[in-house]
């Protein structure tokens, strides 16, 4: 497979995530779109790591191509921590204003 196909696929998924963040008002759906963007980046990182596995430098060092996949692993770790805190904040917000509409969070404006 060409690397370009993976770049375009990741870009399309990433922009769908951006459009979701811009269009929706439900805080949970906005949060899910952020997860989608993280996954698009993960897919691109894995594709690049497998692209480097074909290069001549990969034959010299065994760890050369797996570094990017370790990076993806750490992105997943941080995303899991982020989701637990973020959902706690959204539940807290729902308890206070009884809605998940992000437009109600404009108290700092005035």
């Amino acid at each position: 497979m060409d690397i370009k196909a993976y770049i375009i696929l990741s870009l399309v998924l990433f922009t769908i995530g951006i459009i979701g963040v811009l269009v929706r008002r439900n805080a949970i759906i906005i949060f899910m779109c952020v997860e989608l963007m993280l996954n698009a980046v993960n897919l691109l990182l894995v594709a690049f790591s497998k692209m480097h596995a074909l290069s001549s430098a990969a034959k010299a060092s065994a760890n050369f191509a797996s570094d990017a996949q370790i990076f993806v692993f750490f992105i997943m770790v941080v995303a899991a921590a982020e989701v637990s805190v973020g959902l706690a904040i959204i539940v807290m917000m729902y308890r206070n204003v009884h809605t998940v509409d992000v437009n109600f969070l404009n108290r700092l404006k005035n």
Partner: protein
Amino acid sequence: MSIIQIIFLLLSVMAVGSALMMITSKNPVNSVLWLIVVFFAISGHYILLNAQFLAIVNIIVYAGAIMVLFLFVVMLMNLNAETEPVKNRRLQLIGITSGGALMLIIVSAISKIDVEQLVQINAGDSGLIKVLGMNLFKNYVLPFEISSVLFLSAMIGAVVIGKKEEIENKK
């Protein structure tokens, strides 16, 4: 067209279509379920790239743990299509236009460059558990240990935020 290209195309259509369904469906429960389909398609891509460890971790952590948490919160708040807040048409149009313009520009720029780099498909041992484990515990031990501290602080943070109401009531 080889079998690899057909599988790639199928998984890509599945991922993009489910992502579009996720941001367009009115009911938040349906959105969560469509996002799980996206994660399964991305796991399929990982298996196609022979990154087996990440494919399994993606299913266990994302589809198994994170999305169950999302589903739990959505059902706890009893959200459905009636309670869904709707943005006005003008703002929706502006969002779709700006996002689509971004995608159009970057995709056309990427497709112009003539780099013929190939990706290793369904071969190579860089994604196997043995290689990744050796690399993780030899070269990346410190980030691994720091991530445990991160998890501890996230856990404490979630509990503190969740219990805030009771503390305020006692005062």
